[in-house]
């Protein structure tokens, strides 16, 4: 009867691992970029601030999928032969970096200026004021929206299937096509896509819950 369920589940499991792997690498890349952008926004150099701002405006005004396709097609043209997986991770990381950079910048900007002035008046150096006074507070402000951005990146990982990566959605598509050609010809598309939706839902709902828990715990 339901002899299709087990093989499909196994295959989707592999896809889920790919999705989690993509999400992890994207998050790492986007976080590093985000830190860099936030640092640029705090610079005393007008040019550095401008570069950071330009990056954020450009990458947040363009669809994530467009950036992904751009990177996917552009990398081979500049002589870098990478697989679709690498291209997808770079594309999503570049896009996520702009979003996460905005989160970090917002958190830094939300700390009142008098905090720094107070710290300096007490005799802390500029670096000490940043490390011991500004950053601990900014960290608390940034953490909940940062976790929120993680759910955005996990959801965006599904876009990699468009360039042919066998992530959760990609492997679901392959399974549905295969099921449509073998056996009874029934693709079971509804069950499989609902399954994929549920897996994403569980991951993202858990992350959302985590974000609001952190928000409650870290409230000063």
């Amino acid at each position, binding site marked *: 009867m339901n002899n299709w369920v087990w093989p499909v589940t196994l295959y989707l499991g592999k896809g889920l691992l790919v999705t989690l792997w993509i999400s992890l690498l994207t998050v790492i890349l986007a976080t590093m970029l985000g830190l860099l952008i936030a640092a640029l926004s705090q610079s005393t150099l007008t040019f550095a601030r401008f570069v950071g701002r330009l990056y954020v405006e450009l990458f947040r*005004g363009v669809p994530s999928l467009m950036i992904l396709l751009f990177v996917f097609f*552009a990398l081979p*043209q500049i002589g870098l032969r990478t697989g679709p997986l690498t291209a997808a991770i770079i594309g999503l990381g570049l896009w996520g970096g702009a979003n996460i950079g905005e989160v970090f910048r917002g958190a830094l900007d939300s700390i009142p200026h008098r905090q720094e002035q107070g710290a300096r008046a007490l005799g802390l150096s500029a670096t000490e004021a940043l490390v011991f006074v500004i950053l601990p507070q900014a960290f608390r402000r940034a953490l909940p929206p940062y976790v929120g951005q993680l*759910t955005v990146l996990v959801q965006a990982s599904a876009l990699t*299937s468009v360039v042919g990566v066998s992530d959760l959605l990609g492997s679901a598509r392959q399974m549905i096509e295969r099921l449509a050609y073998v056996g009874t010809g029934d693709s079971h*598309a509804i069950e499989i896509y*609902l399954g994929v939706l549920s897996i*994403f839902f569980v991951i993202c709902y858990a992350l959302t819950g985590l974000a609001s828990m952190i928000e409650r715990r870290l409230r000063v």
Partner: protein
Amino acid sequence: MQNDLMKEVTELLAGLGNSLLISAIGIALGIGIGLVLGAIRYARIPITNIAIVGFVNAFRCTPLLVQIFLLFYALPDIGIRLTPFETSWLALALWGGAYQTEVFRAAFEAVPKGEVTAARALGLPAFQTFLDITLPIALRVAITGTTTTAITQFRSSSFMIVVGYQELTYVANRIVSDTFKVFETFGIACLMYLLVCSILSALSRTFERRLAIPGLGVVK
């Protein structure tokens, strides 16, 4: 050479037109859904509340791309066949509606309680208080959030490439596959997305300023 570029720009413009069409329908329906469901949430009607929270979470915690696949490739299994155009605006409307519901719920809750109490004390019936006091203030509060969601919906219209709807990203992708002119084509397409996004956020700022009620503190 020059003619080639003109031809491409014309094709991209046609794609942009299609993107704008599905976005406009999706955004309008999304605002409608969000306004109604947000108002019902604000009214705290027990059973509908759970249903609406379920709808909002289901659409916000799963990737739009998977929702599109479900609508377009799975629904035919139970006899519902949607054209790429119908799928496109419907997916944008449902997904945006879930986000707009939260925007409007928050906007309704942000209306100062004193305003409502004062209106009721002056003898206005509950429903008229809602129409004449709560709604006009809430709509002004909601402008920023609504625009953010609307812009995201417009950018997400690029996902409709997967159902073969001829929107901007689809057209750009096709031109790149044919001509390998990656940088010009995607560059122009990105500029078009950026332009529309900046026009939308400029419009939102104008609205916010024009509609501000002096002394009500809704607009900074």
